[in-house]
């Protein structure tokens, strides 16, 4: 395994995610409109507790065990991702069948989709709880997909650690798709290649932040190099330690981190406020982010109180993100100003 020289990373603040899916659409309209890509959501946002995308992905294995051995895994099916349903607009609007038709989903009745269980959540009323969890490829330091590919078709860029599928080398074996414990690799059934989030490397190469990050109206996403101590990523992940990887036990060293969510107070049996324990159970968050999440939550609460009383807290100021441009670790160029790439589709002798 060759480590990259530097590693780009993303932090997502789950206290600010609105579940709006602007990130999903930003990515979709940019990268995944081509043939075979219709069902792909490189960026997903799920309501959790929930079964996620693909359905029950956390039970599908992959990644590495504590000894570093590959864990058994299985491939998700198309149905488990949710297909790109086609609708009967033309028939409805022009077919001359009046009210006897409604807007139908063509083909099989869907049983799952990329946001099927939106706003359902867990718990029991009135102590129900949920939050939104956006996910992209984690561009792992120890990428299971990369190890799993027998053709070496998955590459990790030396300059920034972005993991990409070399679609020229890929022969569509799909070992990567099973090996990824986050199930963030899709298979293009028309082109027979694996495809996934590319961390918007064409934008990165031009100094522009990934679309999902830049377009997020909730201002939840930070971008930057792991080692850049001037930028928010290092401060949130390594200095303040409030941004944590999802399922660290999968053993792949992911480079997308999350600031854990804090929900409103619970109610006791009489309907009075019960502040003895959090609405989002600690065990649930530990199950997602590992035991360090409890320290992270404590730090956030303490710094919030400090900001409230004294008006000063470096951590709170980072998370508030007074100036939006500063969220992107230097990748703050305006995309409309970029010199568009022109590619010469020839090969020199």
């Amino acid at each position, binding site marked *: 395994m060759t480590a990259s020289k530097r590693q780009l990373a993303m932090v997502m603040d789950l206290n600010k995610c609105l579940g709006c899916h602007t990130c999903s659409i930003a990515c979709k309209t940019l990268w995944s409109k081509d043939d075979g890509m219709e069902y792909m959501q490189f960026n997903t946002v799920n309501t959790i507790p929930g079964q996620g995308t693909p359905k029950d992905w956390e039970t599908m294995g992959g990644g590495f065990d504590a000894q570093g051995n590959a864990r058994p895994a299985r491939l998700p099916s198309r149905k488990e991702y949710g297909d790109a349903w086609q609708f009967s607009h033309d028939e*409805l609007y022009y077919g*001359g069948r009046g009210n006897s038709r409604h807007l139908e989903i063509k083909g099989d009745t869907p049983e799952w989709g990329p946001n099927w269980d939106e706003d*359902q959540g867990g718990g029991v009323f009135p102590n129900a709880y*949920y939050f939104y969890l956006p996910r992209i490829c984690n561009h792992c330091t120890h990428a299971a997909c990369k190890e799993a590919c027998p053709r070496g078709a998955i590459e990790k860029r030396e300059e920034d650690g972005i993991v990409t599928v070399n679609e*020229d080398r890929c022969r569509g074996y799909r070992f990567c798709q099973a090996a990824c414990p986050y199930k963030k690799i899709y298979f293009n059934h028309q082109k027979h290649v694996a495809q996934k989030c590319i961390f918007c490397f064409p934008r990165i190469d031009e100094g522009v932040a990934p679309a999902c990050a830049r*377009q997020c109206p909730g201002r939840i996403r930070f971008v930057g190099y792991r080692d850049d101590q001037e930028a928010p990523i290092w401060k949130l992940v390594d200095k303040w330690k409030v941004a944590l990887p999802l399922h660290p036990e999968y053993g792949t060293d992911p480079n997308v981190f999350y600031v854990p*969510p804090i929900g*409103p107070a619970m109610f006791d049996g009489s309907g009075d406020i019960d502040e003895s324990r959090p609405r989002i159970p600690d065990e649930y968050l530990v199950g997602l982010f590992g035991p360090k999440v409890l320290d992270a939550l404590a730090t956030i609460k303490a710094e919030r109180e400090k900001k409230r009383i004294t008006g000063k807290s470096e951590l709170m100021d980072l998370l508030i993100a007074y100036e939006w441009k500063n969220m992107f670790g230097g990748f703050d160029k305006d995309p409309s100003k970029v010199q568009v790439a*022109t590619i*010469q589709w020839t090969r020199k002798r």
Partner: protein
Amino acid sequence: MSHSINTTRRHFLKAGAAGTLTLGLGLSNLQLANGATGKLPAAAKQYKHYQDVYRKKWTWDRVEVGTHTCLNCASGGCSWDLYVREGIVWREEQNAPYTQTNPTVPDYNPRGCQKGASASALYRSPARVRYPLKRVGARGENRWKRISWDEALNEVAKALVDTLSTRGGAGAYCENGNNSDFGPSWIAMIRFFRTLGIPVTENFGGVGDLMTGATLVLGNPVPGASSDDWFRTDYFVNWFGNPVSTRIPDAHFMTEARYRGAKIVSVTPDFSPSAIHADLWINPRPGTDAALALGACKVIIDDNLHDVPYIIEQTDLPLLVRTDTHQFLREIDVVAGGRKECFAWWDEKKRQVVWSTSSAEFEPAKRTLKLGADDHPALEPKEASIKLLSGKTVALRSGFSLLRDKLAAYDLASASKITGVNPKVIQRFAREFAQAKSAMIYAGAGMGKILHGELVQRATILLAAITGNNGRAGGGWQEMTFWELEGMMVSALYDHPSDLSLQDQAGFWGAFAAVGAEQAATPTYISGSLMMLTNGGSYDHQMNPKYNDPGLSRKPEEYLKEALAKGEIHNYPGPELGSPDLIFNMFGNPFRHNRMGDRLADTLFKKAKLVVDITLRMDDAARHSDILLPTAAPYEKLGFKYSIAYPPYLHLGDKAVAPLGEAKSDWEILSLLMERVSAEAKRRNITTVKTYRGVPHDLGQAYWRFSDKGRVGHTDDEKWMRLILKLSMATQGMTLEKLRANKGVMRYTGVSLLGGRMWCGTSDYKIDEPLIPYQDMVVKKKPWPTSTGRQQFYVDHPIYIEVGETLPMHKEPPMAGGSYPLQLTCGHTRWSIHTIWRDLDILLRLQRGEPVIFVNPGDAKSRGLGDNDYAAVHNDVGEFVARVKLTPTMRPGQVHIYHAWLANQFLTGKSNDAVCPSPVRVTNFAGKHGHLKSEVGWFDLTQNDRDTRVDLRKYAA
């Protein structure tokens, strides 16, 4: 393109061995043409790497800056760039141009949401109408044939002249759904129908967004400020609203305020998407919010936490009420020739009645909220009395002492019983609210959509007022407000706006006076909610006493009849408008935004000979129309975004690309049409026709008037844009060129001097401060725009006295729709701005693809319903079918559906609006009472739906 391909075997193998391009041909001699020279640009990168395929995906021909006037979005503007390839919009991305107001608040960037990000997909989608279409077969059958613009315009012009010459303006009307811009589109509609004397529906009340309670108390239905002010709050109460889903570009100010140490409270019966980011979720039983607010008020007053000086200066609570009539004491009662809108307090020291200088009819030069050095208004006077003109002496009580009596019914035990909220929670909430340095009640538009919403508004404003929060930075009762653009108003309403300039003040205000006179004779707007009630087929359900307040002593329809007899209702569309020959539809979908809107098919629409829909897309209204005229999408024409104050910036919606197909801008469509109307009138020698109110005008001259003496031609949309900038106080110094150079966005440079609907009560606008409302009153002591000149909680119109609502109170939600066990609530979806995006495939794939209803697992189980089952949701009014989503976030006894699904997205073609009887709020019929004036968009009948009672049963598809 000429090329030679060397396909000898040697070259083929060479190419294959290198393994780069998969085309398998020796392409070294392949020349790609590029312009006239056939040469490649010097900087062209050599393809060497699969990654270049992705690089190539991220390319475009040009960027159009400052587009996307997402119609009718109440969050206000968001600035987008469009990336265009070969004349077609490929995708869009926010351009994030907003500079920080000042270093103490976060900046506005980036704004935008998933709807903006998929706007171009929507405008290219199958729902988009691209050509003029004419119905073939029966109405509603959805069989169409394409016709030319010529044919379409001629047919419509002929129908207009037929109708106007035989029935005048009363033979036609225009349904207006509010999904317009603040620019040439809205100007076009108003100029067109105003010139022809045809009424246009106004639907602020119709959709239920009109906050009549805010009109009553604050003298304005849309009081609010800029959203960066949310950041400065210490206690943010999100009441009845769901900003996480409905204020996507602004919600970050709330989540970031939380990191600043502010406490966030969400008041909502179910655990909503906004409650997840709160510190405290309070869940009153649906419709009992007034009891919660009043219970909190009682705690605060009993604990002496209320702000007495503020209450005395800024509210009507020290003013005196007669104990005999329950009306305010007025000068006219006591002094011969005295003033009606002149009210009094009791002076403690002088032991007498003193007339309040804040009163509406006090001498204008002396009107002020400022109290004199020896003014000592008593908040709760004992033994106050006065001798009336009649000679009788009457005891007087202050509004505050009457309020204290009223609040006795909302002690903690009672408030808890009504709301289902634990008394300790109510108490804690009240104390925290009162003791916060600044507390804000951010009122969701849902507050207008229950029958007793007006009372909830009054009660929650009271809570903000007695704690002195209205007017504090980061505080007060707020919802959305607009930045008034006089230039747009006068361009629409005045015949010759090109003659005007702000330098000629006399001319400018003279124009408004002329507008006033013309509107008085023939109001362009009629109330959309009253049109639906009177002529739309919903009367019986809306007037059913069983669905209304059981405490009413008369039938609901009696109140309407009485108000009409007294002439208290303005903009009333009577039965004489119930049989139009000709219906136009613009900017909306009346079948969807009206509760029971499906009935329009059998009433107004059935009676019309010709229905014309000027529309972007196919929807319920289009399907019931005869001629569809395709309108340009927002970035295919010029316009300004709704000038909502959340972002205090003007947003340009530039014309980025040519309209798709044969679409035209609204201005061009109506201009072409008007030209033909006048030409046809002249051809037939028709001169005088009458407006719908009987005012004669010359139809042959209509185009001359419409086009501002011929100065604004068919494709002169830009002239309106420039006129708006020139004639609005908020846009002085702005030009289209400067806007374009600034990514289509510029901070407002001033505030309007026009009072009225669109106002926030702050005229000293500082460009480097968040806008806080009500500063003119709280700081400058100018009177509030109410009769008393104060925040007015006591209402003494006879209807209010009759129904017991002189002061805010709680009234039980009615059993709207019948005696059924479940309450159906609704909320604005995150997935669409009303119906516009509702059926877009890439967004539907991120949901379940069809309408869903949220149900508590217990309620579902007892009805044999599992997740994703179809359920029939029914009551006495109607039925619809939707898929069930089980969720523990839903309160038992409550079921919830998000709004704006098109009727044809439902399995049986009936939407959730089909079960909502929208009982009439009888106080909406009041008028002619000081600032309580019946007026569309001000004080009008509001539709409601969130008290609807239903049951669910499993539905076999």
